């Protein structure tokens, strides 16, 4: 078993452990054995509601959302070969959130919300990539343009929250700081569906990303059809980010931080590194959500606040290294 596989196995075991903790802790502590039994084979009983309606879906949503976000971050960062180009930093999450809020504000069917979020993410991405294109991509330019688009779209969200009747947009508050507290099996189902489609696509794109990250000229020399593969990577990354935004709101820094951790543990992207990234994303979001729930209990923080608190210092670290390199 090679190093990456060992790391994946370790991460999977850690996730399982955290998931069990997630089922047991809370305002009503439940013994681990009872919690697992209630969740898996002994449904019903005393703790059925607490476990199967509140905690279990929340744990599953945290795992799936973590996988989606981290995989999305890895796709974008590898495409541009820049650790700052991640969907939360360059405004793709905010694009999805803007479309989600607009969906509520104009009173469209909520079942359309994931599609609206995907369209919003894709529109934001195309805008950012088009505006920063100068015969090639530069990570720095992309990040700067992305931060601008991000600010612009945040303003649009705020405008919609103020402009539209409060009863329509009150549910939209969640698109300002993502939280897992309202997670349902519906959310889990949507994310699982998207993952079933997009994870295999992402796996197929790994081999191409390994070529694309050598730079445009080398990639073309190796027979890469750059345009269509860039579009494929961007679309896949947007889909993975958008489904999370649609279900739980923007959760910053998972997509930024996790791929970097995975790369520093296991090296440049391979199929194994993609798996490791996905698992570490699940691990980070699960632990962030547990901290959010229990740190100031009974006061519950949005998970997005905790991921930001974890990711902020890391972002400063990356920027520091960047400055030294320049």
């Amino acid at each position: 078993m090679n190093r990456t596989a060992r790391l994946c196995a370790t991460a999977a075991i850690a996730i399982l452990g955290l998931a069990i903790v997630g089922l047991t802790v809370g305002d009503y502590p439940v013994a681990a054995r009872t919690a697992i039994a209630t969740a898996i084979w002994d449904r019903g009983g005393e703790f059925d509601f607490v476990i199967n309606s509140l905690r279990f879906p929340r744990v599953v949503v945290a795992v799936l959302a973590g996988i989606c976000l981290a995989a999305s971050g890895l796709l974008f960062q590898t495409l541009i070969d820049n650790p700052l180009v991640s969907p939360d930093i360059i405004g793709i999450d905010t694009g999805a959130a803007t479309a989600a809020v607009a969906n509520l504000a104009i009173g469209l069917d909520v079942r359309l919300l994931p599609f609206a979020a995907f369209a919003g993410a894709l529109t934001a991405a195309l805008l950012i990539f088009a505006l920063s294109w100068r015969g090639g991509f530069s990570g720095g330019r992309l990040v700067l343009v992305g931060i601008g688009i991000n600010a612009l779209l945040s303003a649009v969200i705020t405008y919609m929250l103020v402009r539209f009747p409060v009863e329509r947009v009150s549910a939209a508050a969640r698109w300002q700081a993502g939280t897992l507290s309202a997670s349902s099996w519906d959310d889990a189902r949507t994310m699982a569906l998207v993952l079933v489609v997009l994870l295999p696509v992402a796996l197929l794109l790994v081999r191409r990303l390994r070529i694309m990250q050598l730079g445009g000229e080398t990639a073309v020399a190796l027979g890469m059809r750059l345009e269509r593969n860039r579009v494929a990577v961007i679309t896949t990354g947007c889909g993975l980010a958008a489904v999370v935004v649609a279900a739980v709101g923007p959760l910053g820094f998972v997509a930024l931080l996790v791929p970097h951790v995975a790369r520093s543990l296991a090296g440049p992207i391979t199929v194994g590194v993609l798996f490791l990234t996905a698992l570490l994303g699940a691990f980070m979001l699960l632990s962030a959500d547990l901290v959010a729930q229990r740190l100031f209990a009974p006061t519950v923080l949005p998970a997005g606040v905790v991921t930001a608190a974890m990711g902020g210092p890391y972002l400063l670290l990356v920027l520091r290294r960047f400055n030294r390199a320049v």
Partner: protein
Amino acid sequence: MRSERKVHPFVSVNRAVHVSGDASAPSRPVLNTVQLDVSYGGPLVLADLTTSIPVGEVTAIVGANASGKSTLLRALARLLKPAGGVVCLDGADIHRQSTRSVAVQLGLLPQSPRAPEGVTVGDLVRRGRYPHQRLFDPWSKADERAVARALELTGLSALVGRPLDELSGGQRQRAWIAMALAQDTAVMLLDEPTTFLDIAHQVEMLDLLVRLNRSENRTIVMVLHDLNQACRYASHLIAVAEGRVEAVGHPSEVVTTELIERVFGLRVSVITCPVSGTPLCVPHTHCDQP
């Protein structure tokens, strides 16, 4: 005049190139340009440029800064779309062929290639096999052989597991060459492969390329800054000035005081290299006058 050239330019002109090529050398050109115009959106950088790359030889493209020599190499590598004329690979427009089928015949080493952080020598070289692999193909014995051979030829077999950032400049450049070698193409294009290397590593690099040319019969095309290195190592010289070809041929035949004056705007004396017998250009400078 423009429309006249557009009608099957390579069918007719290519033949003419063949004939004249056959007269002097028996080799058949696989890679050639016909009345090639290239621009980066502004004025033409290459204008009406027709030339061919002799098979199995080492070709050096030389010229002053901004003469279009790198542009010519990039156009040959299909990185630039011509504004007019064609680049032909085996007689057919290179832009009409699938980029993957071109990639198994034609390799390129850009001037400053970009390595992902933490990539090892072996990982980098293996990526050169990309054009030979199909969507669901597993890593094959042929892939493994090509990579092992590329590492051996570049003397990197012992460094296969080392991260690229830990290597010296010369070793790093050899790793990139190994990647291009693993691609296993008959023609290799290199854009200033000796920049950033000290003189010893420059010689080592050029020796390696000539060795590859001789032992593997690979056609080598490189842009070189150093005219004397070009004369020393190339068997075919393409001198470019202001987007046109000023002279082509064996260095001993084409390198003259007049040519260097025309191409570089520099007065030189051309003497015979005491070591190799190839032309050696010694510049005249203002400081020489007493």
